[in-house]
């Protein structure tokens, strides 16, 4: 790969990367930022140098993600039913039942296959020893998967010479896998379930992704006002009148789903939806009330949760996390605050974080005061020397920090999209990769084989994907 990039040369690389980004704008593969009543469509900056994962590395990640998703679902089922884990004192009860994301409506409510988290995004980083660590679970409505697929398309349009002959795990069957899972989890007894994607609409910053997912699944993208509940059944408004809906992949938060149950001011939701759901007439994916499991407060307990339910050692470790509600965690954090990253629980998007080694004296004082005022609202972690990857910058190809968000889809079983979203901090030295704070992304390549022991099925699925994109005869030759 180094050789191939070298052959292209820096200037040509830049020109082609710029052309590729221009394609993204034309295609409208954008997210929207709102400022002073103006809507600006931005692209997620694309770095043309792919991030490569070996088959062996991917195997670890895939198994680790599946394990984690299994534990999350078992945990959710438990806390909404018999509450063994809190009764056994493994996780503090108030942390679960006092959590703002805990939904009493879910108690004793049966969920098909016990799958609460149908779509999960697991944020993974790599430390200086090369070990993959989980930074965060996203079990509500994780976004970013559209970029995984679109980045690959972009790569094959703009850099066919980099991709040529590479045996990569394909990413373009995400929609089909997702639809299969959504069909699987539809209410029992429905033969040909109608799946829809529920979006807040065109003004949502992730609208492109909603469009992408609806198209890839081949299902209608609906807004709240397109749905109506009559006699505890959900229908969509079509030209031919009301048509039943059975599974809703919803991309709006719990709070906004049903104004008669949650926020009464929600214009995005569907009055009566939760009632229909509780009657078992419609499936919501993800289920309501998953937010309690991906909370930063619970995150700290995830290794214990995995061991508790699965009797297994976590395949992917957590970043070492100090729980400030526990005396030892608080004491350690106060003593080492200049060296630690202090994070509020229950926030996302990189907000509210204090990075000790980079904070001023005054900022440290503010952080310490906030911590002491409400210790249980905080966790702390060591500064991880995030791994870096070569990235095209104004100063040539430079190392930049990055993370990885694989996406797991679970119906009856869990499937993990090979690769995931590699987010890269485009600024030198920056550790923050969030798109809302200027991060970019890379195409993520999972090599389909790097050892002779690779399974047959993987190379087969690869050649099938090639025959679609490059024509049958060529793929025959490659096999």
């Amino acid at each position, binding site marked *: 790969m180094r050789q191939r990039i070298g052959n292209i040369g820096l200037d040509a690389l830049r020109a082609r990367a710029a052309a590729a980004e221009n394609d993204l704008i034309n295609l409208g593969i954008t997210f929207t930022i709102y400022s002073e009543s103006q809507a600006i469509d931005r692209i997620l900056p694309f770095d043309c140098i792919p991030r490569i994962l070996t088959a062996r590395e991917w195997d670890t990640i895939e198994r680790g993600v599946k394990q984690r998703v299994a534990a999350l679902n078992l945990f959710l089922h438990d806390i909404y039913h018999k509450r063994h884990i809190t009764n056994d004192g493994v996780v503090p009860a108030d942390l679960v039942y006092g959590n703002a994301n805990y939904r009493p409506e879910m108690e004793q409510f049966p969920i098909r296959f016990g799958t609460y988290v149908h779509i999960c995004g697991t944020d993974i980083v790599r430390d200086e020893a090369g070990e993959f660590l989980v930074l965060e679970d996203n079990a509500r409505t994780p976004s970013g998967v559209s970029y995984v697929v679109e980045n690959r398309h972009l790569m094959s349009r703009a850099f066919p010479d980099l991709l040529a002959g590479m045996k990569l795990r394909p990413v373009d069957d995400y929609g089909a896998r997702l639809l299969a899972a959504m069909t699987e989890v539809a209410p029992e007894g429905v033969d*040909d379930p109608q799946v829809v994607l529920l979006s807040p609409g065109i003004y949502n910053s992730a609208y492109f992704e909603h469009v992408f997912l609806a198209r890839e699944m081949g299902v209608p993208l609906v807004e709240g006002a397109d749905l109506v509940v009559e006699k505890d059944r959900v229908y969509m408004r079509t030209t031919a009148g009301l048509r039943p809906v059975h599974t809703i992949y919803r991309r709006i938060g719990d709070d906004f789903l049903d104004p008669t149950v949650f926020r009464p001011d929600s214009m995005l939701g569907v009055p009566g939806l939760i009632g229909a759901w509780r009657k078992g007439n419609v499936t919501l994916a993800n289920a309501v009330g998953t937010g309690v499991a991906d909370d930063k407060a619970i995150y700290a307990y995830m290794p214990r949760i995995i061991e508790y339910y699965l009797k297994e050692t976590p395949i992917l470790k957590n970043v070492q996390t100090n729980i400030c509600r526990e005396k030892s965690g608080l004491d350690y954090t106060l003593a080492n605050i200049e060296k630690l990253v202090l994070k509020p629980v229950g926030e996302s998007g990189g907000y509210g974080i204090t990075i000790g080694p980079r904070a001023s004296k005054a900022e440290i004082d503010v952080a310490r005061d906030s911590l002491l005022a409400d210790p249980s609202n905080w966790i702390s972690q060591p500064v991880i020397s995030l791994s870096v990857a070569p990235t095209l910058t104004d100063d040539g190809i430079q190392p930049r920090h990055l993370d990885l968000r694989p996406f797991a889809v679970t119906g009856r079983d869990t499937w993990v999209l090979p690769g995931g979203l590699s987010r890269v901090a485009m600024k030198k030295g920056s550790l923050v990769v969030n798109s809302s704070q200027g991060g970019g992304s890379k195409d993520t390549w999972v090599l389909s084989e790097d050892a002779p022991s690779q399974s047959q099925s993987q190379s087969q699925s690869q050649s099938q994907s090639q025959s679609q994109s490059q024509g049958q005869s060529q793929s025959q030759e490659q096999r």
Partner: protein
Amino acid sequence: MSRDMPLLARYAEGLFWMARYLERIENLARLVDVTQNFESPGREAESWLAMIRINADEEGFAERGGGLTAENVKRFYLLDRSNPTSIPSALESARTNARTLRPLISTEMWMQMNVFHRDMLSLTEADVTGDQLSRLCGKIKEGVQAHTGITEGTFFRDQGWEFYQLGRLIERADQTTRLLDIRYHLLVPGGKEERKQAEATQWGGVLRALAGYHAFRRVAGATFTPVDVVAFLLRDTAFPRSVAVCLEGIELHLSRLRSRYGLRGTVAGLERVEELRAGLLGRSVDKIVNDGLHIFLDGVQRDLILLAAEIGTPFFRDWRPAAAA
């Protein structure tokens, strides 16, 4: 594979309006172009005023405070994004509809719309002055035509296609009557030979604006009267922008919605089309003109508004009659 694919009411509405806005944009460009060409020394203001009256924009234009000059009218229609009847506004609306339709329309349709929109919103004063204007009108027409062609070649032909075509054809019929109305108003027939000559030139201009000049030449013969032009624009069975051809298409698409997709709410619309056709073909064009062309065209326009409502009410999610104006 199940072909009984439901169409969201909101999508039907979006397709209908996207098509209407684009058709409107093309007609506005045609109108600006023909107005520019009509500009005869000393009577410029009169020509541009006609353009404002066609769109019933007297009030909106006056609010902007500028005098009735060619420059102000061009700016009003080509650059002014705060004017809801301007080309940039219509394009903004078309794109917003396209955005809601992204799950449905082809990627190529969206991409062309996106690029077209960006190009049109970056226009400056320099693009609408002097010899640039006609070129710009050509580019706008071409932008819409590219959309039409891409749609024809890539858009899936289920129910949505029928609603798209209905929007386009209703708008096109409406625009043809408006252009005819305003020109006829300006050019009351019967005058000296010299005046007649000038009129003939101007009617030629109207036909050219609608891309119908040469076709008209083929069907009209050596000499023609304004009534022949009116007959051509209203009743010709082959001219794609004639009201009759638009009505034929509207009827076809409504009937298909009924027969192929079982949408029985089409009955009121189909009856409206019959009424429109009866009005159009029930008496000679001479008689229509003698009885008062303006009143006749006004009636057609009102019927088209009712027709849109008769499609919107049964099939769209948020039919807002005000949007039809």
